[in-house]
């Protein structure tokens, strides 16, 4: 029995656009938080003397800013990385759909080849 059927849809083909979308969401979140952090850093370092920064007491807004500036990047960077990894896994899944498509096309072309020879121009 000759197998002459178009390729079946694979789960990878359905999942990879979702991973690309997740990648964009994570990267954009990190970009927006980055902009906000930049503004906090600019204010914290550019508008306060070292003495006032170092002398900030518990509960002081300056200490809160320092906490934001040092804590946020520690989870934001791995989150951004998760976004990058989502893009890459999406790309990897897209690549992984190609071998089956090639096998199917090879099979169909193999079956069509004698007909192409006989009936073709």
């Amino acid at each position, binding site marked *: 029995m000759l197998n002459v059927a178009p390729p079946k849809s694979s789960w990878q083909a359905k999942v990879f656009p979702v991973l690309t979308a997740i990648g964009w969401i994570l990267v954009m979140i990190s970009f927006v938080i*980055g902009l906000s952090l930049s503004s906090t850093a600019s204010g914290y370092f550019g508008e306060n003397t070292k003495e006032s920064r170092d002398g900030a007491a518990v509960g002081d807004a300056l200490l809160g800013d320092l906490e934001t500036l040092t804590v946020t990047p520690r989870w934001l960077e791995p989150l951004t990385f998760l976004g990058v990894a989502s893009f890459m896994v999406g*790309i990897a899944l897209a690549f992984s759909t190609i071998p089956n498509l090639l096998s199917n096309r090879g099979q169909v072309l193999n079956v069509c080849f004698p007909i192409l020879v006989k009936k073709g121009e």
Partner: protein
Amino acid sequence: MREIQKDPKPGMPFNMIEGMMPMFPMIAVVGWMLVLIALFVGFTVLSPAQSAFFADAKEARETAAAGSTFVDANVSRHVIEAWVPQFKFFGLGLGLMAITMALGTIAKKLRHMGKVIAAHMPANLAPPTPPIPGRVRMFQLSTVMGVMILLAALIIGIVLATGVVPDYFNHTIATELNTAEVNSELLSQLGTVSSYAKWLNPLRIVGMSFLFTAITLALTVIINTLRMQAGMLVQFYNKASG
């Protein structure tokens, strides 16, 4: 065999992009070399600068005057950190651009192969040549966008590395930098040098994301082309075998 019709030439800027596509191996090697140069700078300039700066106690480092080894080392390490990361990301961007271009070339080759096969079919059974998918233009634009963002980040890095960064760090830490008053130029410069990385680093990743998206779009073009060609061959088989 019937004559194979050529695809119409695209307008600007797509004709330029398509003209550059066969150069993808060179672009890949250049990208790889840029990252290698960044590694070399890290090894030969940044690493010795860090060693020189941390060669004595904090008091000695912070009381050293402008022109001393410590201050020079401090300037050097901050200047390098302002431009080298952008430079290496630009190199990675070129690598991703080369991948997109190679995928675009594969999509073209597949299209040509489909046309060759269709040209050998009898005229009444041959499927019409499908139009160039709209996603081709999208992935080309996404590639350009990604590379442009990375180039902009590199230019910003160079501007910082030749302006505010050396200006700020070329001072004695203890008596000049640490005693800067509110509204002084030094404190304002500190605001800039302490905050640029917070938005520039995510911006680079946005640039990379455009390139990743371009690769994904190029892959969907290839996947759809393969599916379409298999479908056309199946149709041809069904019609030809009655």
